[in-house]
């Protein structure tokens, strides 16, 4: 009815729904260009060239490198202590004394640990060991008491750090045992990758402790 006829005549659009064709003033275009330019310079100066390793307040990766302290010898020992406490100290104890009652041999003063090279102890950490094993004149382990392949889940760096820590701590300090490098761990890890089961002391003794 009336609504119908009204809607037919309501078609002409009111003036407020239209828009004039004024173009953007040239100074505003300049503002856009200048702010865009300034913004890009800002990205060039502060953006670290999209390197995922560059965090504020550093400008680029050279800047980060220059401010990052190179790893000192002591760092491996400090990190190694963390790895040791988390993975080894449960059995070998935090003082490296081991425990005769649990059948876990000492690391402090152990001739295996203080061997000239780390070839054997890297293998023990990577694959584990089934005793009995003679350490400092005592017999440890054997039967159901074995060391599992703790190092299999650790990185080369972690294994190296933990062994470096063990070779330089307690009474082992000052015995001249050289630090263990991740490269040594890697080369042995490659050599033993097909080995199944634990090492036995006899097998290990056939391997030279030093390359």
């Amino acid at each position: 009815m009336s609504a119908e006829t009204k809607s037919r005549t309501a078609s002409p659009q009111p003036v407020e729904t239209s828009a004039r064709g004024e173009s953007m003033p040239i100074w505003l275009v300049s503002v856009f260009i200048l702010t865009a330019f300034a913004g890009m310079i800002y990205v060039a100066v502060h953006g670290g060239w999209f390197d995922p390793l560059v965090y504020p307040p550093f400008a680029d990766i050279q800047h980060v490198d220059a401010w990052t302290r190179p790893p000192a010898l002591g760092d491996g020992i400090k990190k190694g202590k963390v790895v040791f406490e988390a993975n080894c100290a449960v059995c070998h104890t935090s003082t490296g004394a081991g425990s005769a009652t649990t059948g876990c041999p000492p690391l402090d003063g152990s001739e295996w640990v203080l061997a000239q090279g780390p070839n054997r102890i890297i293998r023990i950490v990577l694959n584990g060991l089934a005793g009995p094993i003679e350490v400092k004149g005592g017999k440890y382990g054997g039967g159901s008491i074995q060391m599992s392949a703790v190092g299999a889940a650790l990185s080369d760096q972690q294994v190296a750090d933990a062994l470096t820590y063990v070779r330089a701590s307690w009474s082992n300090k000052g015995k001249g045992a050289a630090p263990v490098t991740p490269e040594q761990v890697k080369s042995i890890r490659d050599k033993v990758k097909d080995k199944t089961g634990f090492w036995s002391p006899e097998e290990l003794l056939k391997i030279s402790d030093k390359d």
Partner: protein
Amino acid sequence: MSATISQSQPAGTAPDANPAVSPAETDLSARVLLLLFLSAALWLVGGSVLGLISSLNFHKPTLFADCAAFSYGRSHPAAINALLYGFAAPAGLGVLLWLAAHLGQAKLTGIPLVILGWLLWNVGVTLGVVGIFLGDNTGHEWLEFPRYASAFLFAGYLPIGLAGLLTFKNRQPGPLQMAQWFILAAFFWFPWIFTTASLLLVIWPVRGVMQSVVGWWYMNNFGNVWLVLMGLAVGFAFAPKFAKAPLYSRDMGLFTFWSLILFGSWAGIPAAAPVPSWIPAVSTLGAFLMVAAILATFLNLTKTLRQADRHAVRTIPELFIPFGVLAFTVASLMAVVSQPIAVSVVTNFTWFIPAQQEMLVYGFFTMTMIGAIYYIVPRLAPVAGTDLLLGKASFLLCAIGVLFYVVPLAVGGIIQGSSMNDATVPFLNVVKGSLMAIRGSTLGELLMILGNAIFLLNLILMLFRFFKTSTTVFLAGANKTVGVGA
């Protein structure tokens, strides 16, 4: 739902076959929006009272010392979320639905959808606010509602958004008006950012510092893009309406729109964020790229408004909405200025940031929406010969209130940041030094509460008078009695 569509359009006809609908018929079909406006106004008053409660913790820290629910850590996010989700979203969506129908000369389509969405949404907001008070806060700023509440929000948004798109689709053919661009984008923007942020932060949280990146992205998109899209839709629709003249420049309007869509969502990641440097750097570039768009918006809308007859008496919405345009410009420029590291090193972690957010959420968005609702409601519920109660006072209270809130906190924030960077100033002195600014802001909050309360009172009065005088049946009769309200 299909029943609703067929009321305005027989099945199978092309959209351009819709007859144009008179404004009075549109208003009659859109009465359901009164629900959204009323609940929004209730949450606005409720949220601002909660905000005041949280601020009281600054002035008397022992006040709620034995009441975990009212401690700052709960009452503050409860207040912010009540304002954002209880008021801002439904108010904005209600205004957008009205505009979509009005500018398209169509009826509001999908009334049952709007009612369903409104119910679910408000259940979500209520659950969320209660959840925050009970300690279920998710810990992500502006997304603090626990996931059981977010699910209701999402379920509630879908039908409302669908009604918006259906109404938009029924528009009269022809080139889009400037406001229609913003309306369409706003309907899609919220579900995108809300689902993305909820999935990545609340449902299957990303790891570590990426959570902060997603959080900043969401806050920026919610405030500086979604609220801006909705608020500018109102600006671009109402400025020509008030001036009774065409929009000053279509080109500049489109420039604003595309800048916002393309660059708006980059900004918001603070320069000192503990993430790879390129992320805040690109964020800063995005902020810089918005400068021209912000100025273009200001210029475009003020030049449009200047075409008005200078001697005509200004109505209340004509006070609120231009204030919103000004506040948009100030708030957006504050956000841009505080983005580069040279300034951020001072303003980050200070009161400057809340000041900027308040300028945007209240000064710009809330003022704009109050103005639009003051304009729309008398048309949805027409009662002859009545005026707004204390209309000018409500504007002055809101406007002065937001200035009292923002100016002391912005200035106080800069002083706070400068002294925090000075190693010789003890930290406690910095904390005590910002107390004066907080006192000013609390005074502002009180004024805004009064302004909000008058707004709510006006809505209730208008509805009351309408029910009393109207012979039409509310809501249910809206479609059957086309023409009566005209």
